[in-house]
């Protein structure tokens, strides 16, 4: 009955290094993708913070066999033109878990909690015995600093190694390089290329260069010079808090009255709300008590009362939008686009959290996409592509719930529509609820699914104008062919049956040509209307986007026999 074990405290680093499969390292192929993704996301966040237009360069090489069976040794290097990091920050960012400039700040940045890149360093360390190799230069630094950072797993501290000062021909920026056991998968939904093209799609201001394995360098230039402005977080909304958070929040305010604290520390609490609270039974004397003296019981009373009064929904100012203009341009970078539609909704509140949904749909020309395969659905959460576990995701569910047939697309029951289309859905929110730690699936709450669904429906309506125009054109062509083919057959038959003379045949043929010509004229007119509609849509788009997709050419078929 001896008590043998004493309680010891583990560091976060110990926890995460034991659970790397939960944060993106569940297989060697995912390890490569996660490494690329965390580094690129950090670069993008850093540039945005600093108000810089990002230029990111990626190289991925295979340098040999991995130390583990069935793996390759892969070198991944990401170079950016961001603000760079001070050396003391480098150590934290790359070598310490939960060290972040963003933790819990309620902003729409890609990274949030300071886990990702430290996990990459850990993986590199575990599989190649070498952490992150970093070069950094801030504007203030005269020369660049090159170093290796490792995670001290026992103490969750970054360890700086082989620090060197070097020349670097740029004002500021950061390069990081990892050697890891991994496997490269380029194609497919979980492939590296899907991540890179998805990232350029929702980051129109990004210029990306990459060279992967033996392939040539690829450059995707930015299509806008506007740097997304990241709105500041707003004060917390009482309905999004738990009691404990509510009490903890009071500690930030020192010696003020409850009433003042409520108005100052929260959004959507006005004098009117205080009046409502009093109507609901809260005493004025309590509102006048100082927050640092009231009892827990009274905190509970205030909190409960607040939960019961009606408040305005939280502000949506804290969400960031890519914008229809930028999306429209960016989608052209994916491939040869036939036509497209983009919709950027106004920010709204779902499940008490501000959220903004944007959708871009494009039909691609000449890409290896079969007419009868499902569309390619790209999902983005805070501008990061989600590449796994799509079936339970709010975005997938919303896309499957739309009746695409009414916009001219084929669609099996309860499924994604078919055709050579890209459907990109972007959800931006300071509080995205993921179903798991590896952040691949957005929880499908009814409110969020409905908001995404509405966005998709709007995009579908815009798209349908283009599709309608296409089908009108096909129609006109068919009508012309019909006239040429059937007019003589029909008239000849009727003449034989009525034993009519030849001249009657001529007259009837002429009349028929006129008649059917009228139909064709009518069809042509319909086409014109359809074209006008589609053009209107395109013009509207242009006003927003400044670019115009090539209109498909309507070929006039020369009439063959002079009689149609």
């Amino acid at each position: 009955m001896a008590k043998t074990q004493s309680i010891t405290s583990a560091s976060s680093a110990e926890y995460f290094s034991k659970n790397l499969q939960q944060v993106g390292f569940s297989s060697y192929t995912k390890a490569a993708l996660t490494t690329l993704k965390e580094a690129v996301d950090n670069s993008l966040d850093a540039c945005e913070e600093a108000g810089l237009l990002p230029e990111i360069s990626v190289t991925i090489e295979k340098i040999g066999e991995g130390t583990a069976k069935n793996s390759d040794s892969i070198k991944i290097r990401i170079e950016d033109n961001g603000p760079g990091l001070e050396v003391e920050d480098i150590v934290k960012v790359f070598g310490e878990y939960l060290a972040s400039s963003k933790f819990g700040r309620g902003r729409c940045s890609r990274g949030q909690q300071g886990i990702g890149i430290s996990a990459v360093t850990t993986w590199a360390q575990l599989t190649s015995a070498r952490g992150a190799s970093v070069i950094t230069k801030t504007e203030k630094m005269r020369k660049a600093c090159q170093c290796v950072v490792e995670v001290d797993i026992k103490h969750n501290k970054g360890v700086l190694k082989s620090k060197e000062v070097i020349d670097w021909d740029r004002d500021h920026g950061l390069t990081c390089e990892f050697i890891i056991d991994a496997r490269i998968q380029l194609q497919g939904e979980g492939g590296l290329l899907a991540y890179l093209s998805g990232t350029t799609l929702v980051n129109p201001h990004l210029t990306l260069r990459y060279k992967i394995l033996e392939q040539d360098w690829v450059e995707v230039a930015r299509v806008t010079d506007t740097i997304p402005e990241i709105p500041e977080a707003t004060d917390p909304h009482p309905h999004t808090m738990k009691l404990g958070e509510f009490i903890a929040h009071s500690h930030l305010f020192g010696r003020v009255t409850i009433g003042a604290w409520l108005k100052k520390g929260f959004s959507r609490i006005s004098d009117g709300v205080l009046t409502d609270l009093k109507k609901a039974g809260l005493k004025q004397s309590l509102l006048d008590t100082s927050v640092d003296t009231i009892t827990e019981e009274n905190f509970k009373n205030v909190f409960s009362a607040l939960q019961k009064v009606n408040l305005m929904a939280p502000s949506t100012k804290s969400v960031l939008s890519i914008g229809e203009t930028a999306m429209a341009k960016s989608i052209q970078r994916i491939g040869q686009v036939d036509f497209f539609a983009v919709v950027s909704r106004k920010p709204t509140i779902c499940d008490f959290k501000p959220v903004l949904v944007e959708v871009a749909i494009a039909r691609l020309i000449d890409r290896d996409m079969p007419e009868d395969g499902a569309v390619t659905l790209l999902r983005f959460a805070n501008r990061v592509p989600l590449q796994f576990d799509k079936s339970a995701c709010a975005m997938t569910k919303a896309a499957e719930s739309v009746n695409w047939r009414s916009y001219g697309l084929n669609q099996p029951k309860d499924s994604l529509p078919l055709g050579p289309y890209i459907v990109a859905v972007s959800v931006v929110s300071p509080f995205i609820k993921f179903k798991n730690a590896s952040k691949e699936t957005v929880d499908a709450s009814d409110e969020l699914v409905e908001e995404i669904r509405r966005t998709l429906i709007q995009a579908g309506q815009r798209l349908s104008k283009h599709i309608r125009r296409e089908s009108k054109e096909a129609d006109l062509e068919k009508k012309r062919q019909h006239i040429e083919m059937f007019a003589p057959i029909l008239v000849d038959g009727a003449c034989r049956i009525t034993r009519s003379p030849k001249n009657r045949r001529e007259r009837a043929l002429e009349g028929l040509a006129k008649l059917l010509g009228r139909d064709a004229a009518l069809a042509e007119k319909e086409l014109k209307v359809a074209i006008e509609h589609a053009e209107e849509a395109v013009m509207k788009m242009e006003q927003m986007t400044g670019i115009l997709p090539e209109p498909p050419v309507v070929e006039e078929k020369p009439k063959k026999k002079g009689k149609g």
Partner: protein
Amino acid sequence: MATDVNVKQLSVDMCERLLRDLEKARRPVFQATKCALDNCFYNPKVGYLTPGDKKVATELNVSSVQKMSRAIFMIELILRNLDVGATNTKRELYYISKGEIKHNPALRPLDFDDQDESDAIVDFICEMMECYREDLNCFANDRGGQTYSQQLMVMETMPDGTKATIDLSKLGTAPFQPKNRPQSLKLKAKKKIDFCLIVESEGTANTLVNSGFTKRHPVILLGAQGVPSNAVRGWTKLIQDELDVPCYFFGDLDAYTMQNIFRTLKAGSAASLIRNADFSAPEVKFLGVLPEDIKKYDLPDYAVRENDAVESRALKKARDALQNDPFFKDKKNKGVSDILRWLLQHKRRCEQQAFFSVNPRDPLMPEKIIIEKIKNKNFV
């Protein structure tokens, strides 16, 4: 008696109108009677479903020009047949048109990809001319109507003018099989005929004949073989009209029989609205199985399987029929619609062969029940 359709004249008229309109660059429009329930009327004095004023118009335009051209082409083939008295099945017409097009490349645009396409054109011609395919010398397989009688004589005038007289009592065990155009026949009774019994199941008609029904009773007995074909419908009308004998329909007690078999035999159908006059026998009575027979004869019956697609569809259709079908709505047919209501309420069904269970040791029991029911006016 039968209103003969002059297809040739109709075709010429149609083409004349077509050409006249075209010469004036007017858009030709072809109208046909709408054959659907919402254009059905029922006049109890007439006794069958008649068409209302609603028309279906086919306008010649770019969308319809292929269909119209194909129709004109097919009419030519049919007129040729009518000229020489040749007949064909739908499939043969399909191959004839294939051959015609093969020999005349200018017609290539008309070519049919499969028989469904040419069948649709034949149907379209029937609609426009308001006739049956038999009027176009395009015949379906013979189905049903095998007839037995010791008294009935059938007289036929052949196309070449010769006459044939068939004495049904002289065919041994073989039945007389009326063809698809029974209207051209003449009937005569050698002796007084008491009634004509139309049996839904051909097998049971056979059983009754084999057991001597037609020997013991001066009657006409015929098997309908399910939903009555045009031949069976025309033949029954002919018997009713020419011989003036009461006609009784003996079939299952279920919604499908009431609506699809008995109603069609007695008053025609919405689909054949244009020619119900020639293809219905309004005097036919429903002899059974009647709902009250189940109790009276202690017949084995069955619950309708509502998860069976066919049976549940028939029930649904019965509900509709009671609300919308002018035949079932007319009080003259209250007896029949009461049965439908009973079926809807009780959701039971009973097959005509159930009468064989009444006294299984007496093979003549079903016959006796039929005779008894007729004697007691136990029918609707």
